[in-house]
């Protein structure tokens, strides 16, 4: 005889029978979020379908219709609705297609939230003295990073935080490492997060929302170098600087020693030529000053020189003036010689003067019996007028 059960008792008993953890693989359909908290979707295969229920907080992976997933959960009939569903504890993506879809979904979500904004990227310190590295200590990635770093630069301290970079523990350990560097006074100026290449599944930890948020939330600037040249991870986008590989991360965080020394020499050269320019300028300025001063001094001096030169020309001038005079005097003396009365007397003429010594030119000037002096070339006589004959001679007229 079967026991009659109430509906509640029935569901309770059934739930007891079916209790347990199951892993079910299938394709997502009818995915929807209710009130921002509850997630409902169907998991189906070619022949069957099962309802799934999850909370937004418990679901670690973004889902979309068509994705192939493994659901880890327990089956339950809900008392209120009588609906049978699988309560999801964890979801694992199956196949690259699903991973890719989940990756793109999370990328879009975080992008919209502003985690990848270029404006928030910080500049790295140019010459770090201490670098924190989050990596697997024994990985080729860390080996490459150290090798390139040593080739390029000296004098930097590296604190390595050894973490799992794939598998279950990876996300937690990476997040803890970020927390460690950001809370302990390690003095690290840059955090470098590195991992070698791998499939999308291998790199899952670097595409996990928690890891990306740890990168985003780091107070210390982060350089992320995950995978090969072509690989991209969401941590890359959230980091302040994205390196294409772990080796590239080393190239980013420290300068090349040879380049640096060239820069040093160049700097020294620049300040040297600047100083040299200044010296040339100063010299030119002094020369200009000197030129100005000497021209001020030279102008009165030049006047003196000019005066002196003029003065020196004076004797010549006088000399020529003198010779003019000399010629004049000579010709004058000849002239004077010609008109000297003495010369006339020498030729046989004589000169008559009255008592006052005045030259007598006309007979009318003399009275009869008047004494006068007759002057010869040599000597003179006193004479007296005996008779006078007043008549104009031709010669007189000529004179």
């Amino acid at each position, binding site marked *: 005889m079967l026991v009659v059960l109430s509906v509640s008792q029935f569901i309770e008993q059934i739930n007891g029978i079916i209790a347990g953890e199951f892993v079910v693989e299938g394709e997502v359909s009818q995915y929807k979020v209710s009130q921002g908290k509850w997630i409902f979707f169907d998991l189906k295969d070619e022949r069957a379908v099962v309802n799934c229920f999850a909370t937004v907080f418990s679901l670690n992976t973004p889902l979309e219709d068509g994705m192939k997933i493994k659901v880890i959960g327990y089956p339950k009939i809900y008392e209120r609705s009588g609906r049978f569903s699988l309560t999801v504890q964890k979801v694992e993506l199956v196949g690259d297609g699903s991973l890719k879809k989940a990756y793109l979904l999370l990328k879009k979500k975080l992008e919209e939230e502003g985690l990848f904004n270029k404006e928030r990227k910080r500049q790295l310190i140019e*010459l770090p003295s201490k670098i924190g590295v989050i990596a697997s200590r024994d990985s080729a990635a860390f080996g490459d990073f*150290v090798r390139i770093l040593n080739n390029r630069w000296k*004098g930097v301290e590296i604190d390595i935080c050894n973490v799992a970079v794939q598998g279950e523990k990876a996300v937690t350990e990476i997040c803890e490492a970020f927390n460690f560097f950001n809370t302990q006074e390690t003095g690290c100026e840059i955090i470098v997060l590195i991992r070698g290449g791998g499939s999308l599944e291998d790199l899952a930890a670097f595409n996990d929302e928690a890891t990306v948020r740890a990168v985003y939330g780091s107070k210390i600037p982060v350089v992320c170098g995950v995978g090969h040249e072509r690989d991209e991870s969401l941590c890359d986008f959230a980091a302040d600087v994205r390196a294409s590989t772990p080796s590239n991360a080393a190239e980013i965080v420290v300068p090349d020693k040879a380049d640096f020394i060239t820069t040093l020499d160049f700097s020294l050269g620049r*300040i040297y030529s600047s*100083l040299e320019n200044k010296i040339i300028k100063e010299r030119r300025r002094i020369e200009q000053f000197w030129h100005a001063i000497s021209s001020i001094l030279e102008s009165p001096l030049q006047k003196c020189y000019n005066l002196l030169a003029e003065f020196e020309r004076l004797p010549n001038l006088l000399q020529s003036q003198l010779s003019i005079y000399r010629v004049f005097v000579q010709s004058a003396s000849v002239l004077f010689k010609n008109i000297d009365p003495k010369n006339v007397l020498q030729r046989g003429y004589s000169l008559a003067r009255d008592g006052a010594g005045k030259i007598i030119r006309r007979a009318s000037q003399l009275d009869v019996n008047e004494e006068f002096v007759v002057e010869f070339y040599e000597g003179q006589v006193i004479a007296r007028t005996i008779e006078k004959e007043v008549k104009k001679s031709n010669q007189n007229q000529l004179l």
Partner: protein
Amino acid sequence: MSADKKFNFAKSYADLEKIVVWFEKENIDLEDGIKKFEEGAKLVSDLKKYLDTMENKIKELKK
């Protein structure tokens, strides 16, 4: 130089950069310029010496 723990590489480099910037000015004072050039030359030589003597140190953190 290697024994001189007090040498601060980043600070010395920043000082050198400051000097370079100072020299970019239009009008520099000649006397200061000579002083700063000497400082710059010393910084360059110290920085080079430092790079020659230093090694990178790796330490694993215990969590």
